[in-house]
């Protein structure tokens, strides 16, 4: 197991290196000059060139990459082009806002998705199952930001119950209630697709597993129904759930560009959109590497969780 873990961590670092080379190369080869985008017509061509030289963009690409990498190893992510602040500070300023939003959304998704999926699978083809399947299919088929727009239209514009933008009121104290009111719509909208797909996969997996002989045996030997469902059935239906949660992990840190843009949420997703439009290379690289590291960690955790859920899956060992 230790060998397996060491191997995976080594592979992870290697992947991160590949990601950084690919990202750095493609970003710098893509059209668009960050200096021109930032200063536009205010500066002459010579002055723009001076800015690019100061940012090190006039050097050959490999030189730039090695310089970026050697600083990165010392945890120096460079400075943002737009305001000159260290990228590390910019990211750590945005990260809490995104985590606050995405962890709430993931919580909503797992609690609702798995619970509703299991309940639906216990009585397949009942009216409840029919309703759940209908709602989840409709939810899955709607653009989440469009639903968000309609929710804003209803709850913010027409009813005036919930705020439509930001993390807290600009004026007045940011009380817990105020923060919660600002969280409701974005977290709900961000969780919608995950709720819908978790319901689908949990339900499908549970229905298949519940038809197996060992479930009938578990019931026949008199186990309470909740143990049959949770211990025997859900464990075997959990693989797709683990995969889906694993796929959501990068979004925890990276945020959602669309939802954060829609609700003016000051998080990582919007930072990425802004940086992409401005070709703000240091910020983009910082975010890509950070998200990349989290993805690799998430993939490792998902694989370890497969092993817990299904002991038939073995890692590192020999085939019997």
């Amino acid at each position: 197991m230790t060998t397996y873990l060491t191997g995976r961590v080594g592979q992870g670092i290697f992947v991160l290196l590949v990601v950084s080379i690919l990202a750095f190369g493609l970003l710098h080869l893509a059209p668009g000059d960050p200096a021109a985008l930032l200063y536009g017509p205010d500066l002459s061509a010579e002055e723009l060139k001076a800015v690019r030289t100061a940012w090190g963009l006039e050097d050959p690409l490999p030189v730039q990459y090695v310089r970026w990498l050697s600083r990165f190893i010392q945890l120096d992510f460079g400075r943002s082009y737009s305001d000159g602040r260290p990228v590390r500070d910019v990211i750590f300023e945005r990260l809490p806002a995104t985590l606050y939003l995405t962890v709430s959304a993931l919580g909503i998704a797992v609690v609702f998705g798995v619970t509703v999926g299991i309940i639906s699978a216990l009585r397949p083809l009942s009216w409840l199952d029919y309703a759940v399947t209908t709602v989840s299919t409709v939810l899955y088929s709607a653009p989440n930001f469009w639903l968000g727009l309609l929710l804003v239209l209803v709850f913010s514009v027409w009813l005036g119950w919930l705020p439509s933008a930001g993390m807290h009121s600009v004026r007045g104290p940011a009380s817990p209630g105020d923060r919660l009111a600002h969280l409701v719509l974005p977290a709900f909208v961000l969780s919608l697709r995950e709720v819908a797909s978790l319901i689908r996969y949990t339900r499908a997996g549970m229905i298949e597993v519940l038809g197996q002989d060992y479930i009938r045996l578990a019931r026949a030997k008199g186990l309470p129904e909740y143990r049959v469902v949770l211990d025997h059935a859900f464990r075997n239906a959990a693989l797709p759930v683990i995969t889906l949660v694993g796929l959501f992990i990068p979004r925890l840190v990276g945020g959602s560009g669309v939802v954060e843009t829609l609700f003016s949420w000051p998080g990582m997703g919007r930072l990425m959109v802004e940086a992409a439009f401005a070709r703000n290379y240091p910020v983009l690289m910082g975010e890509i590497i950070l998200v990349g590291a989290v993805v690799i960690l998430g993939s490792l955790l998902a694989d370890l969780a497969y092993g817990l859920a299904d002991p038939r899956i073995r890692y590192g060992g020999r085939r019997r």
Partner: protein
Amino acid sequence: MKTPTLSPASRPVPKAEGGWVRTARVFARHRTAFLAGFVLGVIILLALGAPLIAPYPPDYIDLGARARPPGPDHLLGTDRLGRDIASRLLFGARVSLFVAGTAILLATALGTLVGLVAGYLGGWVDAVLSRTVDALLSMPTFFILVAVQSLLPPSAWNVVGVIGLTVWLGLARIVRGQVLSLREREFIVAARAVGVPTSRIIARHLLPNVAGPVIVFATLGVADAILIEAALSFLGLGVPPFEASWGNMLTDGQVAALSGAWWIPLFPGLVILVTALAVNLVGDGLQQAVFR
């Protein structure tokens, strides 16, 4: 929606001869799916016939009729430039359906193949493929978009590329997860023991057993692709604005909605919803037909 007859011990049963005929018959009996297929067919026909049906050219700007609510002249109203929303939806259907279909064909083939091979062969093959998937998954969609933009001139093909290259990764992981468990089962071990070649084990024994997730994925994927196009266009990074697509019709829907012009975001969103729903229901029907 779901109207199969589930026997208590329903499992994928190997199909007898003439399986496809039976599959087609079961699908036709599945009324919801059949209806959804019909709706989808109508949408495709409308998209193909757009130049014949549309009351206005999609780019016809009538500055005298800006942001008009639905009425006799403009059945679904006009947008903020005075363009007829119904006509733009008809022409937008061509772009949106083309982008989604092409991208998912690409993604499904790639994802299934990589997942099967990585999961079954294991060892260094799995390590290389899984790490490649990890590396690509760890690159945000925007980043891949920027990369693709640098290689192609701006067009709907950009979006096909972006969706095709990002969407298959999730499928590859799901298929691999299933195969990791399947390859230790008796029927696979038995097939290996009697010397069935690896390519045949993958094609004849593993593929049918992962067909479920693949079908779920491919159908949900078409809907996904429509939604991703919409999201990218919403941010101004998708299909270029001069080409009407369902996604970029939503772009200024946000501003329009806040000023009370609800019909500008409502109708494109509804069309996306109905199309994606029809695709998903057809997929459900297919899935149940295939597994009978």
